[in-house]
């Protein structure tokens, strides 16, 4: 998008400066770049293009599971464990945006209060801004920024997910599904969706008791995939029980990805998704811009509402000029 180049000439390309600062580990630059991307500013495309070559080092771990099972608290414990070993950790924590007001209360940072000051840790809260699937549109671009900032690991926390928010598994290298005891019977663990996507399963809050049943039900249900049998671990984030084991499982899965070539496969699958996703975004924007100028779109809506045309044909008609333009 070359639109702003002319007007920004006076301020000597701020994006270039921010990216340069990012690459030497400046957290403020990282934060500014994430905002730029989140707000979908015109400079975001340029920023991401500059950042992308400096990524690919960080191991990305996604955490998903119902609200209140302890995802943030587990992450906090893990961050402490890893930073104790001299690792640099980035966290992107997603919470939902109100469908009514567009506002959000982002509260994951409360559970991470004791790690926020660590010089090797960067935590960013993010609202979904209307994106479904448990993540925000900008989540994995923010991960890219933290990767380029030099983080060894980046943890992504989804919104408290229900049964079908599985997008995280298509993006992260390792997906951790967090559950807690007393949330349902054996049939709950047989259902499709979120309980299929984990590389590692965690039953948190074992201090509440009654964890055996859930652990047994999960183990009964899980199958080996790509030569990896997902472990089912017991943790209590409240007192740190099982955290070392979880860190160990993450390390084992990372080396499994490397040894089997699975990492490259996942990276490729993610790249495909991201290209398609961005193409879709551009297309949606172009159609919407077109419709704002009133051309065609309103007329097509009238046609569909009057039952003279169906929505599928109308969509094809709408995209015709786009197709011609791209030839």
């Amino acid at each position, binding site marked *: 998008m070359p639109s702003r180049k002319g007007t920004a000439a006076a301020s000597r390309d701020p994006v270039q400066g921010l990216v340069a600062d990012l690459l030497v580990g400046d*957290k*403020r630059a*990282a*934060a*500014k770049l*994430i*905002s730029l991307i*989140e*707000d*979908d500013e015109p400079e975001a495309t340029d920023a991401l293009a500059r950042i992308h070559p400096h990524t690919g080092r960080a191991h990305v771990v996604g955490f998903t599971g119902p609200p209140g099972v302890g995802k943030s608290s587990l992450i906090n414990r893990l961050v402490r464990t890893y930073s104790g070993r001299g690792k640099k950790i980035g966290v992107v924590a997603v919470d939902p*945006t*109100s469908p009514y*007001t*567009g*506002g*959000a*209360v*982002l*509260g994951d*940072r*409360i559970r991470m*209060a004791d790690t*926020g*000051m660590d010089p090797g840790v*960067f*935590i*960013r*809260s993010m*609202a979904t*801004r209307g994106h479904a699937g448990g993540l925000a549109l900008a989540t994995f671009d923010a991960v890219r920024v933290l990767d380029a900032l030099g983080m060894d690991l980046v943890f992504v926390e989804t919104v408290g997910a229900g049964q079908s928010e599985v997008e995280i598994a298509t993006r992260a290298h390792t997906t951790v599904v967090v559950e807690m005891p007393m949330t349902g019977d054996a049939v709950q663990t047989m259902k499709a969706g979120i309980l299929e996507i984990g590389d590692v399963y965690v039953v948190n809050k074992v201090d509440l008791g009654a964890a055996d049943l859930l652990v047994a039900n999960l183990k009964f249900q899980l199958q080996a995939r790509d030569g990896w049998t997902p472990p089912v671990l017991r943790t209590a984030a409240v007192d740190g029980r099982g955290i070392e084991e979880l860190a160990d499982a993450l390390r084992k899965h990372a080396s499994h990805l490397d040894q089997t070539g699975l990492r490259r496969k996942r990276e490729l699958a993610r790249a495909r998704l991201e290209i398609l996703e961005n193409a879709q975004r551009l297309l949606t*924007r172009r159609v*919407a*811009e077109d419709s*704002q100028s009133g051309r065609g779109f309103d007329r097509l809506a009238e046609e569909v509402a009057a039952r003279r045309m169906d929505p599928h044909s109308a969509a094809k008609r709408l995209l015709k000029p786009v197709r011609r333009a791209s030839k």
Partner: protein
Amino acid sequence: MPIPKKIRVLIAKPGLDGHDRGAKVVARALRDAGMEVIYTGLRQTPEDIVEAAIQEDVDAIGLSCLSGAHMTLFPEVVKLLKKRKSGNIVVAGGGIIPEEDVPKLKKAGIKVVFGPGTPLRDIVAFFETAGKGA
């Protein structure tokens, strides 16, 4: 389609008091006004607050203090922000703050002080202006 920039606000409780009903009410009001509110919980140091504000790239910070330590803690936040090249982040204060302290706080860089009984709409309006200015 130019989407209006989201206003991001950090609501923080510096110091040792454990009363955050007011902070939560304000957080909720700002959420309902369409802002993204990061709440960091109780017992934060000024260093914690400034670090969070920078990582979250907020437009403004709302500090709530009911313990009487505001004269120490509020100016410290402003000072640290400036030191970290983030003096453009607007700082507002609230809580149980004696009237005679207000001019001193303002002189120390606290943009506004909201005492008990302040209508929520005034607080929302302040952060809306602060967010647009940044």
